[in-house]
């Protein structure tokens, strides 16, 4: 490598520096590359953080190293874009190719639900859906049209994914069964692989349904908020009665009999239900879930169940505790069920640098009972967000509008944020609920995102130092949400 003995003045480019396992690392922005620094490159970054320096000045300030070593480290830092000259780097924002092929379809089989969870974005005070006059259950014709549309617009992809969603998905189980068979045959005919998953509140699980899910290798995510007193705080039937006693035995049976795909629990954190550790222990140790993911409720800040800033801090504190347990287990080569960590680490490991926060409207669409296409399951049945209809496909202008708004390039607040490769402004739906614009950055949780990403980087770095073999788990892991 050539030494950079030129008169250029260097200053830091964009990165987030962190320490893990006693070593120094940088997370480069926007490339999302993670590098470990040796001593001299760390010292160079220290000096540049204080003031711009030329190569010769640096060599003078670092007499303990041979000038050649300083120049060489400087050159590597420059080439990997950790540091820059006053000209900076010109890195034009990349647009996804037009007509990006679909990869995932979310079918909302019904917009009806047998529970009345008070925070639900589909029915609660923040609902954006406009279901009046639309069918409540998807019919066979719409479902097949949706699958046909999905196969058409995913041309070129070899593996596809269909997720069943609701309302309560299992209220339309007969349709689910037929769609699985229909889509399977179609995929086999085209030589493509296809897998399925569904999200359910578990109230309607029966031994027959469990057997079907297991035989067809359908991944299951169960919405459940923890032990009885917590789950029943907001996850209630319309009578106000809690759902825990109904679902606990069914969930146990599901976990016992469905082993072909991982079964995950998904917890919605609210002001009332935020004891992360207790919920996690209950779901893993008492019920037996292998994966547990948490998400703070999506809502405007005024709702009673909204977690305020201090509540979020407490949640992050507990996340930290659990994440460190994840780290210890990973160092010992064991699987830990806290999937928020594994999801983030998977993205860090790949070096994902997102133009958009998620695949919504890009590689993923939601289709509701009426056949309307929306960016994802959360926008289903919401007229202002409809992007087309399964009978005639995607309206490319509307899609382009949605994607332009949501592109990291149009979120000015994010342009100086080091966490943007993983966050890209956050969920479009949450942004709409909070700010009335799907393209608005979710500025209410930046501290949270940065704190969380920093923690996961540290855990990642430590695993990379002390048990690098463990990271092979993430080589193949899909990072699609």
């Amino acid at each position, binding site marked *: 490598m050539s030494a950079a003995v030129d008169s*250029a*003045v260097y200053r830091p480019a964009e990165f987030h520096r962190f320490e893990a396992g006693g070593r120094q*690392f940088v997370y480069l922005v926007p490339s*999302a590359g993670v*590098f470990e*620094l040796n001593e001299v490159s760390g010292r160079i970054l220290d000096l540049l953080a204080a003031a711009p320096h030329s190569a010769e000045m640096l060599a003078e300030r670092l007499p303990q190293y041979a000038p050649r070593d300083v120049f060489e480290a400087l050159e590597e*830092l420059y080439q990997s874009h950790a540091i820059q000259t006053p000209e900076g780097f010109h890195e034009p924002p990349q647009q996804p190719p037009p007509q990006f092929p679909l990869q995932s379809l979310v079918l909302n089989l019904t917009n009806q639900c047998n529970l009345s969870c008070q925070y639900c974005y589909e029915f609660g005070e923040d609902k954006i859906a406009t279901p009046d006059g639309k069918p409540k259950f998807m019919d066979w014709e719409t479902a097949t049209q949706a699958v046909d549309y999905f196969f058409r617009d995913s041309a070129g992809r070899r593996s596809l994914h269909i997720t069943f969603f609701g309302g309560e998905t299992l209220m339309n189980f007969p349709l689910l069964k037929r769609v699985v068979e229909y889509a399977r045959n179609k995929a086999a005919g085209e030589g493509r692989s296809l897998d399925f998953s569904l999200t359910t509140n578990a109230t309607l699980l029966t031994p027959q349904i469990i057997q079907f899910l297991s035989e067809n290798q359908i991944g299951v995510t169960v919405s459940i908020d923890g032990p009885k007193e917590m789950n029943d705080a907001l996850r209630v039937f319309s009578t106000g009665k809690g759902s825990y006693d109904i679902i606990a035995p069914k969930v146990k049976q599901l976990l016992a009999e469905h082993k072909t795909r991982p079964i995950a629990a998904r917890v919605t954190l609210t002001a009332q239900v935020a004891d992360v550790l207790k919920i996690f222990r209950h779901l893993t140790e008492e019920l037996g879930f292998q994966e547990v993911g948490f998400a703070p409720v999506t809502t405007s800040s005024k709702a009673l169940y909204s977690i305020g800033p201090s509540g979020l801090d407490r949640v992050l504190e507990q996340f930290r505790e659990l994440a460190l347990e994840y780290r210890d287990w990973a160092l010992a080569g064991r699987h830990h069920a806290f999937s928020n960590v594994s999801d983030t680490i998977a993205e860090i490991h790949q*070096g994902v640098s997102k133009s958009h926060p998620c695949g919504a409207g890009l590689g993923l669409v939601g289709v509701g009972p009426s056949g309307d296409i929306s960016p994802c399951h959360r926008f289903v049945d919401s007229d202002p967000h409809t992007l087309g209809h399964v009978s005639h496909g995607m309206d490319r202008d509307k899609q382009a509008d949605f994607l332009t708004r949501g592109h990291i390039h149009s979120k000015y607040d994010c342009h100086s944020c080091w966490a943007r490769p993983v966050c890209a402004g956050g969920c479009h739906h949450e942004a709409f609920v909070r700010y009335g614009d799907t393209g608005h950055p979710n500025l209410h949780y930046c501290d949270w995102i940065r704190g969380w990403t920093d923690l996961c980087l540290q855990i*990642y770095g430590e695993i990379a130092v002390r048990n690098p073999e463990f990271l092979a788990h993430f080589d193949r892991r899909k990072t699609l949400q």
Partner: protein
Amino acid sequence: MKNLRAINRKAHAIEEYVSAAQDDVVALQQGRGGNNNPATRPHYPVGCSIVFSPGWEVDSAGGTAGLCQPAERDLYDCYISCFWPAQVPDHLNNYPDWTKKCASATKDWKDIDLVFP
């Protein structure tokens, strides 16, 4: 790279990219801060097949005014640095003195004469 150790997959990709660029695609090298170091100065590419030289093409209006470098300079791309017997006399073997009367290509190009091999 010796000082930075690539950890994640993106970092490995960056490393590959950097070392590919260093293993001498000279056209990609960049000059920084005044270019007084030969190692970081842009090199003159050898051979026109690895750069886009408009050569004797014309611009969209059919003239040469809109080409991205003075058309006269293209002469030298082929004359000086190319071994290939191109549309201009070659400097290396047969016509070392061809542009002797041409001190500055943009001004004196009219003084360059035809050759009759």
